[in-house]
């Protein structure tokens, strides 16, 4: 059904895709995995005929005899509207900030209320603007927009990273349903999801197809590349016990009475928490329960008329860093990578020397090369941007680090490296870490305290679902 032949894409001198050839038959799901920054998203966009401006390309993409890259605009639009669907990761800005959920769903040509019921979206979200949606809610709206038209070609680009476990299962079922009548391309770092859905698996790195084979390669990785990608079997730092309990506490975060309303409905009611320095609190909870809002309140982005957020001992104001859930939105698009970090270093009172930027990049698993340092943040992949935002937060030497879904766009190897880094920061820098996540494994690996948000309150312990 889809045949890609010798597809290459260059942006300036940089090759984004090199000589890619692959086929996906009708009724087949191809899993595409590989380290972030490897060109997976660019490939998916090309399959819809979306070529970055000022880029050169060669090769051919044919869908059912329809040459996507050379089609006239009108035919291409009709192909995108009726035949193809793409679900991208719900980063901020995935939806039009000036249209409500209802107005978005109206684009499907179906009754928004019915779409809501079909796609597990609470009807109460219909009048909301995207700024009042959680990552998981945006993800479900994107899913509805792509699936409501029953496409023959479905491109899934990290379709579940922003979802909580219950919705992830639901989404997986939706992608499995009807997969027999369409061709699917699944891009994901979630190897579990790939294993469950994909018939064949392709590995892509640095713009090249490193290997393609039946799905069971994941169970016994032969190819060295797949092996490398699938995270080292031994997990350094990951399994390290947390630091010995501290006797004399050096300080801590104490909050009381945090409340927040959205559209007249209370989202957070009277949240109080305590977190000593050098410990981590993981906050779990279904999507839309207010995790991101709580993160923004703790970081001081949303002012609190009534609640109090204090740093104990109180001798000096604490330094707070927020790792945003939406990394691309959190950085100036025109900044080069080095400038993003240099700015944070200056803010922390350090001299922004190149020698200080290198360790920051290496610690987080980003390449420390002159080319990478000169790249604009807008050109980074989802995983790279997420790690850069984390590196920036670390460069601030903050007392409190609020991390909002920091692992959602990372591949397994990078995730483990990040969690190891968090553990080290807690131990060595007395960092108070607040982690908002859906990822239970991540919470287990770094958290000293676990809590979950439900009905606007913070309950201690694991959520029971």
């Amino acid at each position, binding site marked *: 059904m889809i045949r890609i032949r010798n597809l290459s894409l260059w942006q300036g001198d940089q090759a984004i895709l090199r000589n890619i050839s692959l086929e996906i038959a009708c009724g087949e799901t191809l899993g595409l995995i590989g380290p972030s920054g490897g060109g997976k998203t660019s490939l998916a*966009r090309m399959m*819809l005929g*979306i070529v970055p*401006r*000022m880029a050169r390309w060669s090769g051919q993409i044919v869908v059912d005899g329809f040459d996507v890259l050379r089609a006239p605009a009108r035919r*291409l*639009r*009709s*192909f*995108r*509207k*009726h035949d*193809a*669907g*793409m679900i*991208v990761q719900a*980063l*901020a*800005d*995935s*939806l*039009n*900030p*000036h*249209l409500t959920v209802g*107005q978005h769903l109206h*684009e499907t040509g179906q009754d928004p209320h019915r779409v809501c019921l079909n796609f597990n979206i609470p009807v109460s979200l219909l009048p909301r*603007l*995207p*700024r*009042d949606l959680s990552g998981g809610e945006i993800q479900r709206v*994107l899913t509805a*927009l*792509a699936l409501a038209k029953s496409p023959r070609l479905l491109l899934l680009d990290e379709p579940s990273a922003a979802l909580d476990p219950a919705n992830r299962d639901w989404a997986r079922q939706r992608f499995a349903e009807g997969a027999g009548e369409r061709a699917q391309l699944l891009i994901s770092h979630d190897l579990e999801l790939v294993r469950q859905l994909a018939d064949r698996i392709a590995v892509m790195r640095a713009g090249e197809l490193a290997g393609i084979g039946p799905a069971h390669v994941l169970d016994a990785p032969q190819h060295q590349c797949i092996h490398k990608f699938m995270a080292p079997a031994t997990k350094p730092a990951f399994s390290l016990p947390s630091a010995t309990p501290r006797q004399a506490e050096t300080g801590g975060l104490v909050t009381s009475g945090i409340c927040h309303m959205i559209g007249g409905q209370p989202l957070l009611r009277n949240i109080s928490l305590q977190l000593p320095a050098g410990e981590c609190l993981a906050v779990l909870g279904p999507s839309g329960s207010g995790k*991101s809002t709580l993160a*923004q309140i703790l970081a001081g*982005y*949303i*002012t609190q*008329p009534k609640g109090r957020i204090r740093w104990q001992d109180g001798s000096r104001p604490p330094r707070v860093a*927020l790792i*945003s*859930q*939406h990394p*691309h*939105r*959190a950085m100036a*698009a025109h900044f080069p990578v080095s400038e993003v970090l240099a700015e944070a270093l200056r803010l922390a009172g350090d001299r922004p020397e190149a020698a200080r930027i290198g360790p920051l990049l290496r610690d987080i698993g980003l390449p420390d090369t002159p080319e990478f340092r000169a790249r604009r943040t*807008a050109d980074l992949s989802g995983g790279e941007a997420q790690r850069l935002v984390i590196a920036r937060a670390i460069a601030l030497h903050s007392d409190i680090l609020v991390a909002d879904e920091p692992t959602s766009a990372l591949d397994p190897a990078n995730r483990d490296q990040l969690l190891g880094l968090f553990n080290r920061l807690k131990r060595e820098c007395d960092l108070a870490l607040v982690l908002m996540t859906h990822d239970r494994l991540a919470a287990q690996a770094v958290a000293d305290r676990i809590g979950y948000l439900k009905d606007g309150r913070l309950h201690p312990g694991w959520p029971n679902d």
Partner: protein
Amino acid sequence: MTAGAIRISGRTWAAALLWGLAARFAVLMLVVLAVFILPRLLPGDPLGIMLSSDYTQNLSESELAELGARMGIAGSGAEQFGAWLGDLLRGNLGYSATHARPVATLLAECLPWTLLLILGAMPVYLVLAALAGIGAGRAAGGRFDRGLTGFVTILASIPPFVTAVLLMLGLAILWPVFPASGALPMLPSDQLVIRTGQIALHAILPVTALALHEFARFYYLARGEAAVLTHRPFVLNAVARGLPPCRLLAEYYGRNILPTFVARLSDSVSGLVSAVVIIEIVFSYPGIGGLIYGAILDRDYTLLQGATIAVAAGLLALNWLIDAAGTALAGRG
């Protein structure tokens, strides 16, 4: 930083609104003071200008004093200001001796014509600039963009009075398709339909001159915004969904450009009013611009003061409303 990071709660928004109103009231008070002092710094006074024509030469001293009192120029500066401010607070704008009518009546006659020009030009240049700017910005660097941006750059470098004169020369004198001056013909029709047509015909040239003046400003704005929007994920997603071009244009580009347009509008309305004054003078249009210009020449203090304050109050109110709307829109991220 993140979407919706800065949310404006209802209470602080209301407070900002009130604060803005108070600040603008203070500005209006400054205008009141300036508009009283500045005309008096001009050489000559209303009485002197009137007496320079010969048929008033034989007035007695007491008659002159009485005339001066009616014009509001009797007594010391402080007394004049006190009397005028008192009248102003009671809502009485004074009496224009040159026109022999109350200032309020004169303003009521002229303001609609000025508003006609402004409200006629505004949608024209806003919509055209948005369409042209989005078209150019979506394919920034392309052929359409280079051609149009070059043309607009030339247009932007011509001051409004030159455009007005050129338009008049071209379309009213050399090729007389439109009337060259006034808002109505010498003998306006009594029938409403014909009269409306006549008004429209007379308004076309001044409205065009005004719209051309503001077009460039908003074209650049729309072009820059559209060039950025093209790369934003939600626009890419919308393109990937194969939305109809008109919906993409209106709901995706248009709506997202609106907040910047509104913000720019709030600081450009004052420029618009100064342009309208000049254009009214060129086209002898009976709006408030011609009125103010005449008042300066005649040293008609009361009329000048009244007209300036009315314009300033209107501008500040408009500016306040637009700012409030802009703040509400900007909160969406």
